[in-house]
């Protein structure tokens, strides 16, 4: 059952890795997220070096998102113009992120930064999602129609060079999605996440995109930006473990199918609440890890 990972340079139980991929795949099929925010911390808990976990998780997300992106593409659920702007932002963000990543690595603060950013982001996003889905559930229970969320952010409205994004039903400056894409691209490189859990809410609540093209466009951006991230890590730090990514993918594609089926039986607001609970649980687990006295005070950093 053990398998030696050539880049991570350690032996793992391959069933555990495939199982982990399946679990994350199930959740991603169920909630429509890439699941990188779960894969990376779980791999690190298992003992994979954080740099390898982050890079290989990005590779796995490419594979996990492509079939979804294609499915949405066929249904016309991808706003190509919006997607293009997001990808352009994402790839430049990934470039900046890899510089930050290397700098933090030299300082020896990469692990704590990864954990802190995870706690902040997951805590915020999870909290917001939980609040929103609670309200929706209460309203639907009371018999009211779910209110359409319409964003009007004065900062975004003030940006210049407005243009039309027909599929998204928007007339806004491309700078807004460009900056959003860049922020998510940085997170992809540093944390090994696709960023869907930020991208989707931001597209709905900040940009005010129409719901039918949000998920497809988000997946479109994730496929390209995670692929660029894999290339960046391969060239810069040689931390992509192809065997690890392959094992995660095998589990992921299997798990996703069950997840999709499970999702069809549940109400969207309930799904969002479920995802919010998982996101918050991971955030709390990481926050506890940051504040408790670590079992190992010392850590070894290789030849740098």
């Amino acid at each position: 059952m053990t398998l030696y990972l050539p880049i991570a340079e350690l032996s793992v139980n391959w069933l555990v890795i495939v199982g982990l991929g399946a679990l994350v795949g199930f959740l991603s099929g169920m909630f429509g997220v890439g699941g990188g925010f779960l894969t990376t911390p779980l791999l690190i808990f298992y003992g994979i070096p954080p740099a390898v976990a982050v890079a290989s998780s990005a590779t796995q997300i490419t594979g996990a998102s492509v079939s979804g992106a294609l499915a949405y593409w066929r249904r016309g659920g991808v706003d190509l113009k919006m997607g293009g702007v997001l990808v352009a932002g994402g790839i430049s963000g990934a470039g900046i992120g890899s510089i930050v990543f290397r700098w933090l690595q030299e300082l020896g603060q990469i692990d704590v930064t990864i954990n802190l950013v995870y706690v902040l982001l997951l805590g915020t996003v999870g909290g917001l999602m939980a609040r929103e889905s609670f309200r929706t559930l209460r309203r639907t229970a009371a018999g009211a129609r779910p209110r359409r969320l319409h964003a009007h952010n004065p900062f975004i409205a003030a940006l210049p060079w407005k243009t039309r994004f027909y599929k998204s039903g928007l007339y806004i400056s491309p700078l807004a999605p460009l900056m959003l894409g860049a922020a998510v691209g940085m997170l992809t490189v540093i944390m090994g996440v696709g960023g869907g859990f930020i991208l989707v809410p931001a597209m709905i609540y900040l940009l005010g995109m129409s719901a039918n093209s949000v998920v497809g466009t988000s997946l479109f951006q994730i496929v390209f930006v995670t692929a660029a991230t894999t290339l960046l890590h391969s060239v810069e730090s040689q931390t992509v473990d192809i065997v690890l990514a392959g094992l995660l993918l095998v589990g992921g594609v299997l798990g996703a199918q069950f997840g999709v089926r499970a999702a069809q039986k549940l109400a969207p607001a309930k799904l969002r609440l479920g995802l919010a609970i998982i996101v918050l649980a991971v955030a709390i687990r990481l926050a506890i890890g940051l504040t408790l006295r670590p079992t190992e005070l010392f850590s070894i950093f290789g030849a740098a």
Partner: protein
Amino acid sequence: MKPIALMLVWLFAVGAAPVRLITDISQRRIDIVYTFKGTELLVFGAIQYPRGSVPDERPGLAIVVRGPADPITLRKKARVAGIWINTASVRFETAPGFYAVATSAPIKTLVDERNAAIWELGVDYLQLSPSTGGGRAVEEFTRGLVDLRRRSGLWSEQEGRIGITQNILYQARITIPAAVPVGAYSAEIYLIRDGKVIARSATPITIDKSGFERWVYVAAQTHGLAYGLAAVALALLAGWSAGLIVRRP
């Protein structure tokens, strides 16, 4: 001049090194393949006494297997504003990635301090060359490093674990853990009398990745871009084919 010098060396060798160590190892090369779970090295050999006069007392022996020494940075966490982050650090220039010593008796009684320090017999005598000078902090970090490496099985001492037969043949088993670093290793055998090393021999060992693992590793190191493209292609193919299978009713 040369023949005379050579003759002197020969005379010196015959006269001053009365005992020779003959050694072999179960594996000169350890290949790390996909099923690698660690392994065990058998280091064995014989002591060749001059004119075959085997002494009555049990010989003192130390067998060291050591791996490549690389510079490492050891960082220590401290609590800052409620969270634990890396604060202080010490760099060690020559910390071996692997070090195991097996001895025929407890190290303290086997060898004196000076010889232990010269030949690095025992984890406490490793010359780690901390680059930040001495002091209490370095001592604390050294203890931390030794503790980490001991618990990961990368540094070990097996005192009194050399089997000796008829005061001539010796053998020891050295455990190589799965997380062993690759590189050039050596197996060193020391014959010790009255706390001093009187004979030694060294045999090189290579630990390297092999087969598919090596191929992947080398590809990642030397052709980063092509490796990355292959990884992306693999991921896309896996995801796309999974999508096809699902769409089929």
